[in-house]
């Protein structure tokens, strides 16, 4: 029984929620489709009712007359219905469109003002809608807009301002993004626009629907003056064929679109959309009232400082943490300056920035200073000077801190020491040890025995490449020698001639040495040997060079050497040798052995060359 009652309650609840769903508000809109057209092309004035209306709903009311625009009195009606269950709640809505055909006789802008319509006994206001009739080819004018919002007219140099780059594309245009926007203008910091940092939504502006893409941008001017920046974006547009479109008879825009471009492809064209010149006046920061501590921070900031402890000993460091919170050009903010104090040794601070937005415009920047007291006279920590420029008021704000009292007790005599190792009690404000301990600085070296080594990379050293060239030459020589050797081994004659040349050269050398030593016999033997070795080339192998006589060599030499002195010198060599060999008569060295030897060398050369 109880179960049946529960079922009844459930059914009643369902009916109730359904009823509530039906009772949802009626939404009434109006627009021209398409909102921009050419003279001669059709555009429909479409009134859409969306919500809980019955399927056969009618509208009663008079469309306001607009000069030059003729709106048909009998609309074409189409409808669709939708049912949704969200969190157990069923909602049903019906969308009914009334398409009024229109006609215009001249180019211009036609606005149907808001008017009142009665739907099932209730009055609703239909918003104004605008139709633009433009010359052929200009239907895209104003349909795609690339701009920076909000409009920026003036900025201070170095100021960072979060803005948005917006690309608006009229709803009736079929497109694809070929690129993401690109920004040009060397007076401003650059930015990258990607799919990840972009956002897409739908906007209705003056009765016209747009597909809108938005990218955040932190605009920071770098130069003073009237500066300009540009944006550009490439789109691939699907453009319908004009003739086909104008020839359509149907008033249904969806019908038109389907028949003109059934697959949604159309005639595709890549077009670059430009923002046009965006002129921004970049102002110099005022010099009046500029604090000495100003280091370029522009925005709105607050500053807090915190000490790791208020009591320390000489040589024992304490950490001062400075936190800068707010909005502005954090990227350009340098560490606040601590006033110089001989009682303190101040180490360069570490900084860390934690942004709270994607652009890094708002967030918290932290600086950590290590301060080491040098003497007990350090009674207060050095003051921290920081100021920023507030662009809204155009004034400087000074946030210099007041000296904070600390107690410095006498410490151990620690000479050259790292603040980190002075004491393990140097704690971070959050309780963690500040730095790892390190030992002291090691002393200098007293002996330098490695002068001459260079810090020039080996590949830039000439000596390295010379050293690489040497084995290369050696290898080349080795290969050449091997080729020559192989050739000689294959040709016995060539081998013989080569050996003859070597012997002739050696014999000349011997003769020269003998002349210096005053040994006439060895001198003539050497000269004869040189001539014989050179001449053997012209005789068969069977005739050993030792068997050759002057009578055999003379015709060969005469033929090749026209110099009579050469011939007589050569003959003198053979005569002298034979006189010594066969008659036992010793010969004296020639009066000018160098000239003599020169003639023999010439004769030998001629014989070898032939």
């Amino acid at each position, binding site marked *: 029984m109880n179960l049946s009652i529960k079922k009844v309650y459930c059914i009643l609840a369902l009916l109730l929620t359904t009823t509530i769903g039906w009772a949802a508000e009626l939404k009434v809109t109006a627009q021209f489709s398409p909102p921009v057209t050419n003279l001669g092309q059709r555009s429909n004035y479409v009134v859409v009712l969306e919500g809980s209306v019955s399927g056969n709903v009618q509208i009663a009311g008079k469309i306001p007359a607009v000069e030059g625009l003729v709106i048909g009195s009998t609309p074409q009606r189409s409808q669709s219905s939708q049912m949704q269950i969200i969190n157990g709640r069923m909602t049903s809505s019906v969308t009914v469109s009334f398409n009024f055909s229109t006609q215009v006789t001249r180019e211009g802008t036609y606005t149907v003002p808001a008017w009142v319509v009665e739907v099932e006994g209730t009055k609703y206001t239909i918003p104004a809608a605008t139709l633009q009739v433009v010359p052929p080819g200009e239907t895209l004018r104003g349909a795609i807009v690339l701009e920076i919002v909000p409009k920026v007219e003036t900025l201070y140099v170095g100021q960072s301002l979060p803005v948005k780059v917006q690309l608006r594309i009229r709803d009736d245009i079929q497109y694809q993004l070929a690129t993401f926007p690109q920004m040009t203008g060397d007076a401003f*910091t*650059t930015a990258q626009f990607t799919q990840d940092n972009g956002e897409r939504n739908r906007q209705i502006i003056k009765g016209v629907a747009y597909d809108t893409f938005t990218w955040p941008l932190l605009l*920071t001017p*770098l*130069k003073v003056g009237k500066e300009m920046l540009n944006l550009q974006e490439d789109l691939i547009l699907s453009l319908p064929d004009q003739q086909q479109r104008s020839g359509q008879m149907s008033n249904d825009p969806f019908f038109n679109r389907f028949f003109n471009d059934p697959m949604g492809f159309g005639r595709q064209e890549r077009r670059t959309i430009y923002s046009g010149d965006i002129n921004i006046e970049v102002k110099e920061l005022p010099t009046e009232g500029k604090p000495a501590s100003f280091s370029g921070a522009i925005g709105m900031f607050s500053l807090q400082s915190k000490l790791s402890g208020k009591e320390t000993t000489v040589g024992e460091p304490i950490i001062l943490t400075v936190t800068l919170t707010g909005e502005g050009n954090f*990227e*350009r903010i*340098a*560490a606040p300056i601590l006033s110089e104090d001989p009682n303190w040794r101040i*180490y*360069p*601070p*570490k900084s860390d920035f934690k942004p709270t937005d994607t652009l890094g415009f708002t967030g918290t920047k932290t600086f*950590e200073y*290590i301060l080491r007291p040098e003497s007990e006279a350090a009674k207060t920590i050095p003051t921290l000077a920081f100021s920023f420029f507030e662009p809204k008021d155009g004034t400087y704000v000074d946030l210099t801190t007041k000296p904070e009292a600390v107690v410095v007790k006498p410490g151990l005599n620690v000479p050259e020491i*790292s*603040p*980190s*190792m002075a004491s393990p009690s140097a704690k971070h404000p959050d309780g963690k040890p500040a*730095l*790892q301990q*390190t*030992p*002291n*600085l*090691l*002393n*200098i*070296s*007293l*002996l*330098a*025995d*490695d*002068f*001459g*080594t*260079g*810090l*020039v*990379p*080996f*590949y*830039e*050293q000439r000596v*390295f490449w010379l*050293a*690489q060239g040497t*084995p290369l030459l050696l*290898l080349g020589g*080795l*290969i050449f020698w*091997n080729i020559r050797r192989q050739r000689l081994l294959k040709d016995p004659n060539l081998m013989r001639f080569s050996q003859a040349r070597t012997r002739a*050269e050696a014999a*000349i050398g011997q003769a*020269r040495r003998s002349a*210096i030593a005053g040994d006439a016999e060895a001198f003539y033997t050497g000269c004869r040997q040189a001539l014989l070795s050179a001449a053997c080339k012209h005789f068969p192998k069977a005739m050993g060079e030792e068997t050759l006589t002057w009578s055999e060599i003379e015709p060969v030499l005469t033929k090749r050497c026209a110099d009579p002195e050469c011939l007589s010198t050569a003959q003198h060599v053979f005569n002298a040798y034979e006189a010594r060999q066969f008659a036992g008569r010793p010969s004296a060295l020639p009066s000018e052995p160098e000239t003599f030897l020169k003639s023999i*060398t010439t004769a*030998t*050369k001629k014989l070898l060359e032939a």
Partner: protein
Amino acid sequence: MKTIPDKTRFHFRALIVLLGLLFIAITHLRADVAQNLFQSANEAYGKADYETAIKLYQDSITQGGASATVYYNLANAYYKQGNIGQSVLFYERALALRPGLAEARHNLQFVRHSSSLPPESDLDSPIERLASRLTLNEWGWLLGTTFWLSVFLVVFPKFSQKWGGVCRIFLTLSLAVLIVSIIGLTGAYPMTKRLVALSKETPLRVSPLADSTKAGYMAAGEMGSYSEMHMGYYLVTSQSGKQGWVAANDIGMVWAK
């Protein structure tokens, strides 16, 4: 056949010997001068006259050439003078010349800690560990030597069959060393791109222009490496990962550029 007279040959040989002796004498003299300057610099350092010590150490390098020991002492003097950027640069140079110079490594670590600079990244990969065994130039020369040795050990057996077996053994060893030296050189090469920020707040600019905006800063002594150069500016990636253009006079190259 052209022959050179013995007298001329003798004079030529004598000239070569004299030139050689002259070269040795000059080198020795320069090294002697460099040693004297080095000793004077040490004395100035001992008297806490760091400015004079720095000048004398630099003069000794000019006279005698680069030296890991002098670089080490110079780095100490710069640190004592409070110039962290130069101090880190010269410790790095000392280590580039002699990676095993433990004192330089120790003091570099000390300076980094005391100046709140990020510590040197650990040598994680085996290649980096191998590369740190020798200097870049040692790896280069080892590569050049083993390459040619391998080539000759391939070519030599073509001429003489007698030593073929021995050649094969040496070739295997030579090729093994060649491969190791290639790996070592691969690991050591990025060292040539290392640099040190010298100014207290070395600006990283978004473009290589003096009036360009500053994208961030490098602390004095912070390490970085460059990837390209344009009109006196280097595109630097700092140790903390920041990237930007830095003027050449704001940084010091560990290796000569």
